[in-house]
């Protein structure tokens, strides 16, 4: 215990470590907040570009002040230079992608490497004048940050936090739905430039900590980790800096304990490992959670089989034991399926077992109709008698309304399946008030004729007539309807299809 405490406290006694810790923490906060928006806007590559473009800006700012005024490493000038370089890069990127067929990611690649390279040339040509180490610039020099840097990082942090707090709604809506944002008068382009300027600032603040190449690691990795654990933007904008601070603290300590390890890369490696761990164990969007969820899924076919079994059984309440014994699936799956059906309000449980709810009854009837229509269809296309039931059992799971209606129509709206059982009527469309074709009507239905298709001028049924469906004749091939005067007419499928009616009454109601 004492050792651990010593290990934690010992590095803190060094002034360099203290400054590094403060600078890196502030920088990580700014990075996390802005990084959240960068991740959601898919601007990660632009962040990378901005960090590289800084090299040109910093060297220009340095040279400018040194050659004109004789200042060495004038920090404000270097920061302004970096911001200008960022601005030039962003403008060049949007210019190229707007005026040519070059897409944005390519434009970013072209412009930032160009500007980065320009910075490299400047730095090498004037290497005798520039007294900054390029290597520090590349991998950071967090243990050598000066007070000037700390002030700069702190100002950036405060500024960025103010911007995000003040313009949170604007940033949120332009990220989520730019078209809607524009339609209510939010200056979408302005907000984009504001965010880009913030990104440049944040990058400037993070370069002393982790270096140009690794800035993106501090900018987007903690934000991506936060994205994995939350589904609220507000939480993400808070979680990302927390993760970032954790990364820099752990990274700094590790590099101090191990010794002779550049802290910048250590910070980024810690961030990456943290991300990978969260990718596995994040409660909702992690891989393990995903695997578990998929394992919990019950096959739709099994759910339907259980509904079918309970309907077939006929009792109000069916004991769970009977279901487990009869439905051919592993017991744990069947139990889970029954629970799932209860969750979906298809089944309800009481002391005796499980039984249908009203919706469950409806669903079971729908499946029965699908099953019997498929059986009839299979017989129609010549499937051997012995295979009818099993094949239909597989096909009944194709039961969306269009499919079932198609079968029903193609088979001439049959009343019975091959085993002589009644096929339920099309009870989804047969609700009072619905506009349907007369061929859907079953015995006892009352309806009013709305229209008769063109081309049927001699149709025996006229518009506005009230009709009552009678029994089918000729093996179901002829529809009979009773007209108001008591006259009975017979229609074949085609003639019945030509009549559109509004259902007034069903026999039950």
């Amino acid at each position: 215990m004492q050792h651990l405490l010593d290990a934690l406290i010992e590095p803190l006694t060094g002034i360099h470590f203290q400054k590094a810790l403060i600078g890196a923490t502030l920088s990580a906060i700014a990075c996390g907040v802005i990084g959240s928006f960068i991740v959601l806007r898919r601007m990660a590559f632009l962040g990378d570009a901005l960090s590289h473009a800084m090299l040109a800006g910093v060297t220009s700012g340095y040279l400018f002040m040194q050659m004109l005024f004789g200042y060495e490493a004038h920090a404000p000038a270097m920061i302004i230079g970096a911001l200008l370089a960022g601005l030039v890069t962003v403008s060049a990127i949007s210019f190229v992608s707007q005026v040519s067929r070059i897409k944005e990611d390519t434009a970013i690649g072209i412009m930032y490497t160009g500007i980065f390279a320009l910075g490299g040339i400047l730095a090498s040509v004037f290497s005798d004048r520039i007294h900054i180490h390029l290597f520090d610039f590349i991998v950071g020099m967090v243990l050598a940050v000066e007070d000037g840097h700390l002030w700069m990082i702190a100002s950036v942090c405060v500024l960025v936090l103010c911007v995000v707090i003040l313009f949170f709604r604007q940033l949120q809506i332009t990220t989520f739905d730019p078209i809607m944002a524009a339609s209510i008068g939010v200056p979408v382009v302005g907000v984009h430039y504001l965010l880009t300027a913030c990104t440049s600032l944040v990058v400037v603040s993070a370069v002393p900590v982790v270096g140009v190449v690794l800035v993106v690691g501090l900018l987007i990795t903690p934000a991506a980790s936060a994205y994995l654990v939350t589904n609220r933007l507000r939480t993400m904008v808070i979680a990302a800096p927390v993760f970032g601070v954790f990364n820099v603290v752990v990274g700094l300590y590790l590099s101090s304990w191990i010794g002779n390890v550049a802290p910048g890369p250590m910070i980024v490696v810690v961030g990456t490992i943290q991300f990978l761990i969260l990718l596995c164990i994040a409660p909702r969007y992690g891989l393990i959670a995903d695997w578990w969820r998929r394992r919990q899924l019950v096959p739709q076919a099994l759910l339907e089989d259980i509904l079918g079994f309970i309907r077939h059984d006929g009792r109000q309440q069916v004991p769970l034991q009977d279901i487990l014994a009869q439905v051919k699936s592993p017991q744990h799956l069947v139990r889970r399926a029954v629970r799932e059906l209860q969750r979906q309000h298809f089944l309800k449980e009481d002391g005796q077992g499980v039984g249908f709810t009203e919706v469950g009854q409806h669903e079971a009837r729908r499946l029965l109709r699908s099953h019997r229509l498929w059986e009839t269809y299979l017989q129609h296309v010549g499937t051997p008698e012995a295979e009818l039931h099993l094949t239909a059992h597989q096909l009944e799971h194709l039961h969306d309304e269009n499919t079932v209606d198609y079968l029903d129509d193609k088979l001439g709206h049959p009343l019975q399946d091959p085993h002589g059982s009644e096929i339920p009527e099309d009870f989804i469309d047969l609700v009072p008030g619905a506009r349907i074709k007369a061929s859907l009507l079953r015995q006892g239905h009352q309806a009013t004729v709305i229209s008769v298709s063109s081309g049927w001028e001699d149709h025996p049924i006229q518009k506005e007539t009230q009709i009552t469906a009678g029994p089918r004749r000729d093996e179901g091939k002829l529809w009979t309807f009773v007209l108001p005067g008591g006259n009975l007419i017979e229609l074949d499928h085609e003639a019945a299809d030509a009549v559109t009616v509004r259902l007034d009454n069903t026999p039950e109601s």
Partner: protein
Amino acid sequence: MHQSSKDNSGFSTKPAIVVDNLTVSYGPVPALLDVSFEVPAGQLIGIIGPNGSGKSTLIKAILGFLKPDFGSVHLFGEPADRAKGRVAYVPQRGSVDWDFPVSVQEVVLMGRYGHVPWWKDLDQLDRQLADDALDMVRMSDYGKRQIGELSGGQQQRVFMARAMAQGADILLLDEPFAGVDAATEHAILDVLEQTKQAGKTLLVVHHDLTTAAEYFDSLILLKQRLYAFGSPEAVLHRQLLSEVYEGSLRIFADLSPTTKNS
């Protein structure tokens, strides 16, 4: 639903949308050429036409995003670019990032953003209006859900609620029926009908000619020019359609507005 005083001002007698001789171009070929029509308030209107026929250009013009080469768009008597907030845009489902960390409630609240200056917070009334809008599309129980956890129909309803919360009188919908199943399609249609009952004017970009007659009060048939505007019976004229779609249209057996069950 609550309405702020400026929402039910005396505009109701003016037509919702008046498009006058609208010509818009992105190059030498105009995307829209001399398009004129007038939509009375409280109608559900479908915009149909082949790909690249200028449907989205028309939407953008009504949203006030474009500077027309010639002509004008007026909404309740005001020029479109000054009537921001009177029009709500409901995006195509495919263009929304459904993984975005945002809840149903927060999306609907976005409808209020246009009414609150940037330095102020949303107040209790804004939250109330958003809740009412959610209630209207019967999505109150889902307020806390992340938007990706909803079904297609529910997602559409959330964006309809946002448009209602916006207090807009005109709703522009971009292909609300694209890529949804039949049940969802009906659920969405119910919401459209309900919104219309609430006195809103709805303009819907639509792809499916077979359902166009059934769903809309009037249709706009567009291909650069306005080919037809009026009742579905008048617009879905076989000759007209084959002219606009130039044979790229497979002939439909029956486009007349009768039944949906075949």
